[in-house]
């Protein structure tokens, strides 16, 4: 099992797309952070909703850009699993380890580590951005770093678990494009609609479960952005994500991944 995990990690570090994805995570996080920070909020109702620049609440909002890492971890998870079929490396992989369930297990474990690295890229970008804002005169270093430190654990757990969710989606769908469309489509389109219509149902969906983990920030708890009182407790949200990852991976291993490799 250790060998398989090492091999899976090696697969990630020996292709350039992994590094490109990390770079995109960092750039994307910084970009969203800047967009949020510089959003116009000097007039109308936004003045009431938007915290003044440099305040802890404002930094919470800026660092909500870290949520982007979840999507990238999802993409990476899907790629780790479905890349085997896209590039037909499933043949050498399953020749080396014919017990396919073990390969999926190794991928799940390695995706946890990959999630940490994705989060590290996002966190680095957030830190640099925060330092820039401090340098520009918005708040102190201590406050900024404090808010970042408080936000990180929740986003980290959500990101790591979203990576395993991506493995599960990949295991059950096998097709890379399909898995990406389903994964991102659910997160970006379907789930928000369900959450808006039935919050108590929506909270059991993956991205809402992830949101329950992001609420380290006081801002989220305060109800900015549509009210989050429907969310599950953080630990329950984590368990829901773990359940998704395991259920999809196990069902995928017993169904789609069992099929003939031709």
């Amino acid at each position: 099992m250790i060998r398989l995990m090492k091999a899976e990690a090696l697969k990630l570090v020996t292709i350039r797309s992994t590094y490109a994805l990390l770079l995109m995570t960092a750039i994307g996080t910084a970009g969203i952070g800047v967009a949020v920070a510089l959003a116009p909020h000097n007039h109308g109702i936004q003045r009431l909703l938007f915290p003044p620049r440099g305040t802890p609440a404002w930094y919470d909002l800026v660092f909500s850009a870290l949520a982007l890492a979840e999507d990238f971890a999802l993409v990476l998870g899907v790629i780790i699993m479905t890349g085997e079929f896209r590039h037909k490396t499933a043949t050498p992989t399953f020749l080396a380890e014919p017990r396919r369930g073990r390969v999926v297990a190794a991928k799940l474990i390695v995706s946890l580590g990959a999630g940490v690295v994705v989060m590290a890229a996002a966190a680095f970008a957030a830190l640099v951005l925060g330092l820039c804002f401090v340098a520009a005169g918005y708040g102190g270093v201590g406050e900024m770093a404090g808010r970042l430190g408080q936000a990180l654990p929740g986003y980290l757990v959500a990101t790591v678990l979203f990576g395993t969710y991506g493995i599960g989606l990949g295991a059950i769908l096998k097709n890379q494009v399909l898995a990406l469309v389903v994964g991102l489509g659910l997160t970006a389109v379907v789930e928000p609609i369900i959450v808006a219509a039935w919050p108590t149902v929506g909270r059991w969906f993956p991205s809402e479960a992830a949101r329950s983990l992001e609420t380290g920030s006081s801002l989220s708890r305060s109800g900015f952005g549509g009210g989050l009182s429907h969310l599950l407790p953080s630990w329950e949200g984590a368990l829901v994500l773990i359940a998704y990852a395991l259920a999809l991976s196990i069902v995928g291993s017993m169904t789609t991944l069992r099929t003939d490799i031709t």
Partner: protein
Amino acid sequence: MPTASVEVRHLTKRFGSVTAVDDLSFTVEAGRVTGFLGPNGAGKTTTLRMLLGLITPTSGQALVNGVSYPSLIEPVRAVGAVLESSGFHPGRSARSHLRIIATATGVETSRVDEVLDLVGLTKDAQRRVGGYSMGMRQRLELARALLGEPAVLVLDEPANGLDPQGIAWLRSLLRYLASAGMLVFISSHLLAEAAQTVDEVVILNHGRLAAQGRLSELLAEAGATIRLRSTEPERLVASLSARGIGARREGADQVVAESTTPERVGAVVAEDRIVILEMTSSGESLEDLFFSMTAGGALPARELAQT
């Protein structure tokens, strides 16, 4: 170490309503090169993939060293496989590709450089596989197959994409490995090439076993084609046919007798006192044997012309 073996028992695979492999049984032995021959769609690749645990048989068993592939303790150290449509990540170097497999199977990294050298890819090892020619990919596949120093080598159309030098190199490599005691099982549709490489053949047609045995014995059994010139071609054909030897007229005074031996034809001619002006014998080639074994695999020219 027990001798390596490949054994297929009543193997059947259906894809929907199509029966790709039909109650197939054969064994392959170590120390020789065995060719797995058959027309396109005969079920060769399906059989090899069942042998390697990549395709689940509908019924029957495909065994390597007496057990199914997934039951092998260290499959990569028991069997090396070169398969068509086995893939590489285009952005990964050949060396990384092999290192991954070596890591997954506990093979020492030093072996990676050994096999790269063996297949002549050392110079290009750090290059990304996306830029490789088909022949280089085929060599890389072979390198991967040899990584675990297996006693069984299964190759599906290994000559694909290789240039003439590459094919000659592959032939000598396979012959060398077989002489060293390895079991080499190789599918091919290049009959002329296979004829030079293999000791034994397993011929498949429509998913069924058409023939198996030593190539030299099968060829001897199949007999030769005898061409004769006679003053009485009509009577010669009748005499041969009367004794069960397939014969036909060709041209003004020629007779062609098939699947027989010069001895038998000579005996008939002497007995019936027929004057012979010329007689030549040509042994069956693997190609003749293949076509006679797999007749019906393709539409005869006459039917093709009608469709």
